[in-house]
């Protein structure tokens, strides 16, 4: 008894002591199962301002003792108890509770307010910027090309070419391998964002290992890093769509495999839904250093049907088509650092178009000729192509051999109704074959290079004006070979280089125009052969040190021409000596700034046989053209300034560009209008000049802590030139302003919005007293709305405005809606395009001495259901 008494007294003493010192004790349990909650937060708050007085945590048994530090018996305080996954308990006390508190917390799902955790958008290591795809992808993105457009500094133009800081990329890699060379649109248009974890930008990338220590590159390259789960196995998708307009379909199937050693991409597409798939097979330029490593595929068609050109709206609104495409791409390793790539493509494309065109031939503002015609045309193209490359890319030697072949067979038929009713058929075929060889061998302090490109081109064309029994045939054959050898020596910061080369070309133009039309007697035959050879030596001085780079080169050329007019029995030869110095200086004061100043003086000679025809060629049913049958020279001065600021880690880039080009000499166009027909001639004129001054700026900013992307691109150009029209000298000056703001914002994870606007204003003035201006704008607002975990809606609204100086205003408004439903790996899409069923789009443009207003026929409202799945 005596022994117990001290214990109980002690307990009472302790409890009294605690009570008088303001200790709050208790236990925290869960209402679900009455189990104690360890680590619950017990906080004492001041009721006046809710500030924290003190706090503690419950132990493993849910028990706590909180020393309030309050001595008064009637002090007020709030006790708050919380733990994740439970509803907060909060109660006001006016005194220290004498008994142990029993706090029972009710379970409640924890709601997160903040943005969904995404991977960090960008990191940098050396010259490599790593952009996590998850940081840039939006729900509505269908392919990796749409994600690429959001990378600061990257611009993807309408043709699909990718530029970084205003320069074309010089390599496009997938998992470090260059399977596609310049044909990368097949990847950017068809690889889904989910397959790519990271987009890498290799700034100042030198794709040739043998040149890494010898030649600095100003161009960047892009590498797509494949998701680990998608490696070394076949990954495929299929989209099957059917709809009504009348009948429409859209089919796409992709099969990829990216493994350690080999890669393959196979794509099959077919649609009758207005989707232009021809861009998938386009071969893009990879920068000036790769010019001789790629075939020259510039279009050289001489005859045309004056058919509809593309309207400045999405092609899906104006394209009436039936298109099929097959593309097989393979990369096979042959040995270490040696690979073979094969790209086979086939396009079968049938397009029809219908438009009403009003062409004003601007004569003097008072006597302009105005022509209104309704035209419809149907073009059917078959384009098979093959590109086979074997590359050995080692540090000790680089060897590449490339075989390229492309055939384009086009049949076009058209009808024009205006003053006359004209039916026409046009056959345009083009055959291109090229063999390209490169060898680069680094030696101890120098590099030896050899490059050879031989290309054959044949363009047989035939235009039949069926209604008037007129026929024009043209056959152009070109065989060109460019060969260079160069050596560069490394002397510390200086790198002098000597390049020598020999280029030859043989061109043959034959044409025949036959039959009589109205009161005009037309005939014309041409048979011209042009042989040219160019021997050149180019000394180049390079200085490359940290923050400053300088390149000065001065090609010295000896050009020889032999022009034979077989029909006219004339044979002239010419020899020219030319020098064309140029300079480029680049300043890099810090990792974020870059400035460049360049100047070049060029002396060129007209060297393409298709502008040398002494007899008329009927280019289209109302244009006859006569070339200048001689070699003529022109000079040009071009200078440019470029200033770029970019902070990749802050996702900000800005660039400012100024360029000025002044050309003189050469030939000028002389146009004579007779009724609706025009006769064009090329005349030599040493007084001829063309000038163009342009200013361009762009800025883009992506914010880390808010889901906001901003972009702005502005440009202003001033150009002037002169022509001869109706035997009068016409000097034209035009100014163009372009502004393109873009904003995208995400409202939580359920809604994101993209707004893009393009505004263009063109003013044109000539010395005959006529002036006119055109303003056009195109705005699009795309809204993605997530309705649930499986369903979302994409609403797209577009508005186009076109206003000319005669106050004619055209306004066009479009809306489309898509509903997506996901079930596992499948996706169902219901899309309704052109909700308001607009059937026409009107647009005006200037083109030298003409103003053209076109009314395009649009695809009507259409409904399509598409089922997609992947594996």
């Amino acid at each position, binding site marked *: 008894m005596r*022994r117990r008494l*001290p*214990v109980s007294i*002690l*307990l009472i003493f*302790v*409890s009294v002591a*605690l009570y008088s010192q303001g*200790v709050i*004790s208790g236990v925290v349990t869960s209402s679900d199962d009455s189990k104690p909650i*360890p*680590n*619950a*937060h017990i*906080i004492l708050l001041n009721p006046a*301002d809710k*500030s*924290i007085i003190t*706090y503690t*945590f419950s*132990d*493993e*048994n849910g*028990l706590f003792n909180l020393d309030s530090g309050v001595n008064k018996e009637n002090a007020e305080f709030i006790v*708050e108890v*919380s*733990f*994740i*996954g439970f509803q*907060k308990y909060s109660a006001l006390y006016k005194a220290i509770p004498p008994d142990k508190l029993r706090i029972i917390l009710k379970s409640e799902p*924890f709601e*997160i*307010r*903040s*943005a*969904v*955790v*995404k*991977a*960090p958008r960008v*990191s*940098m*290591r*050396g*010259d*490599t910027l790593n952009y996590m795809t998850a940081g840039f992808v939006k729900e509505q993105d269908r392919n990796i090309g749409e994600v690429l457009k959001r990378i600061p500094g990257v611009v993807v133009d309408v043709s699909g070419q990718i530029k970084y800081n205003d320069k074309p990329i010089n390599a496009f890699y997938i*998992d*470090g391998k260059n399977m596609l060379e310049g044909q990368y649109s097949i990847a950017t248009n068809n690889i889904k964002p989910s397959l790519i974890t*990271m987009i*890498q930008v*290799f700034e100042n990338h030198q794709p040739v290992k043998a040149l890494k220590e010898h030649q600095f590159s100003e161009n960047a390259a892009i590498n797509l*890093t494949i998701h*680990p789960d998608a*490696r*070394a196995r076949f990954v495929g998708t299929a989209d099957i769509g059917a709809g009504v307009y009348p009948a429409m379909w859209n089919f796409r199937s992709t099969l990829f495999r990216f*493994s*350690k050693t080999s890669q393959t991409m196979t794509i099959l597409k077919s649609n009758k839904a207005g989707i232009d798939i021809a861009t998938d097979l386009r071969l893009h330029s990879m920068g000036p250093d790769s010019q001789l490593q790629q075939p020259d595929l510039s279009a050289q068609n001489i005859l045309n049907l004056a058919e509809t050109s593309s309207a400045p709206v999405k092609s899906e609104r104006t394209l009436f088509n039936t298109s099929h495409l097959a593309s097989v791409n393979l990369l096979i390793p042959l040995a270490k650092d040696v690979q073979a790539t094969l790209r086979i493509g086939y396009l079968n494309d049938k397009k029809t178009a219908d438009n009403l065109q009003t062409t004003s031939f601007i004569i003097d503002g008072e006597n302009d000729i105005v022509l209104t015609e309704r035209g419809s045309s149907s073009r059917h193209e078959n384009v098979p192509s093959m590109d086979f490359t074997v590359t050995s890319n080692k540090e000790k030697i680089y060897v590449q051999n490339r075989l390229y072949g492309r055939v384009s067979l086009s049949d076009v038929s058209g009808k024009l109704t205006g003053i006359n009713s004209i039916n026409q058929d046009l056959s345009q075929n083009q055959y291109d074959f090229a063999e390209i060889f490169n060898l680069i061998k680094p030696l101890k302090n120098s590099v030896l290079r050899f490059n050879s490109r031989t290309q054959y081109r044949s363009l047989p064309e035939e235009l039949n004006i069926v209604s008037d029994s007129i026929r024009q045939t043209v056959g152009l054959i070109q065989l060109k070979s460019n060969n260079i050898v160069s050596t560069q020596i490394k002397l510390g910061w200086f790198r002098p280089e000597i390049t020598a080369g020999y280029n030859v070309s043989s061109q043959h133009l034959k044409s025949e125009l036959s039959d009589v039309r109205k009161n005009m007697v037309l005939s014309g035959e041409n048979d011209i052969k042009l042989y040219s050879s160019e021997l050149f030596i180019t000394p180049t001085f390079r200085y490359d040190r940290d923050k400053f780079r300088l390149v000065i080169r001065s090609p010295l050329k000896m050009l020889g021409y032999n022009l034979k007019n077989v029909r006219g029995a004339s044979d002239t030869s010419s020899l020219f000596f030319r020098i064309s110095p140029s300079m480029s200086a680049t300043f890099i004061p810090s990792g974020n700034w870059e400035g460049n100043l360049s100047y070049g003086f060029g002396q060129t000679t007209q060297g393409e046989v298709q502008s040398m025809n002494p007899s008329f060629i009927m280019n289209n049913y109302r244009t006859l053209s006569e070339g200048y049958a001689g070699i003529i020279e022109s000079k040009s001065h071009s200078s440019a300034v470029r200033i770029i600021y970019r902070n990749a*880690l802050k996702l900000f880039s800005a660039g400012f560009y100024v360029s000025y080009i002044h050309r003189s000499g050469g030939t000028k166009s002389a146009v004579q209008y007779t009724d609706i027909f025009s006769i064009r001639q090329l005349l030599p004129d040493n007084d001829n000049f063309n000038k163009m001054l342009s200013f361009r700026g762009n800025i883009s900013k992506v914010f*880390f*802590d808010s889901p906001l992307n901003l972009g702005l691109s502005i440009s202003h150009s001033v150009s002037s030139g002169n022509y001869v029209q109706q035997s009068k000298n016409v000097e034209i000056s035009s100014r163009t302003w372009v502004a393109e703001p873009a904003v995208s914002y995400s409202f939580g994870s359920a809604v994101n919005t993209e707004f893009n606007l393009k505004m263009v204003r063109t003013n044109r003035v000539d010395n005959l007293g006529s002036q006119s201006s055109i303003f056009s704008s195109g705005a699009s607002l795309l809204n993605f709305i997530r309705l649930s975990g499986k369903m979302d809606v994409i609403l797209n609204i577009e508005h186009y405005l076109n206003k000319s100086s005669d106050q004619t205003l055209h306004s066009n408004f479009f809306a489309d809606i898509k509903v997506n439903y996901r079930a596992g790996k499948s996706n169902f899409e219901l899309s309704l395009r052109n909700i308001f069923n607009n059937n026409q789009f009107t647009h005006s443009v200037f083109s030298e001495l003409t103003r053209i207003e076109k009314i395009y026929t649009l695809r009507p409202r259409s409904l399509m259901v598409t089922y997609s799945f992947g594996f």
Partner: protein
Amino acid sequence: MKRVIIFSFFVLIISSQSLAQGVSKLFLRAQYSVTAIEYIGNKQYNDWMYLDLGKNESIYYSFFNHSRDSIVQSQISLGYSAYEIMENTRNIQRGRKDIFHISSESKTIKHYSVITAEHYYKSEPAEQIIWTISKDTLTILSYKCIKATAKFKGREWTAWFTQDIPITAGPWKLRGLPGLILKAYDADNHYTFECMAIGGIDRNLDMKAFAKFREISAKEFDMLVYKFKTDALTMLENKGIKITGAKDASGNTIDLKQRKSQYNPLEL
């Protein structure tokens, strides 16, 4: 003689391990942008850290290191050689190799790291940090945060925590506040942690992934880290590896000989 046994309201029961060995559930992820001046006079390094939280434990690790490791592992499984892997991952940003696993139940912190290609970890008790809470508030990621200060591991820390996320956790070893710490920095601003996003996750923390790490004493661990940070050349040469140059995580060349005098560790 019976001893007097004093009972008090502060009853401690040492609990047994209630968690199943191996796997536990993580449901919340906080993403921190970390900047650090680890060497005075050098550029600060940046990293992106994930803090994955479960009810009673958390794991704190570098996103960059984790994602690079994932790429390396996938390439190993595909048969890439070590040289090929090194070439393929050369341009991917590296992050810190340190991983912190904190268990509120056992009140321990396990610090995992890779030092000269060897995997080690140490275990230490989770030190109770004595915070002083002020009345200052700040909004971070739409959460109202309250300011707290404390001296911890040799530095004066300021932390901003939110009661709206009632988890006593934070970046690195910073914890012990009645809410998740969203921002913290030392008085010299040499080390800063800032939460950039919070979101739900559903992943299991599989402790088997750490089986390759060897436990050593805290003293030995700290000594290895110090040696590596201040005299990596000697350490590597002792292992038969000759280093002729080094770059930091951002690709900048570093002078290994100056390291000792410049070293500014997180724990002083």
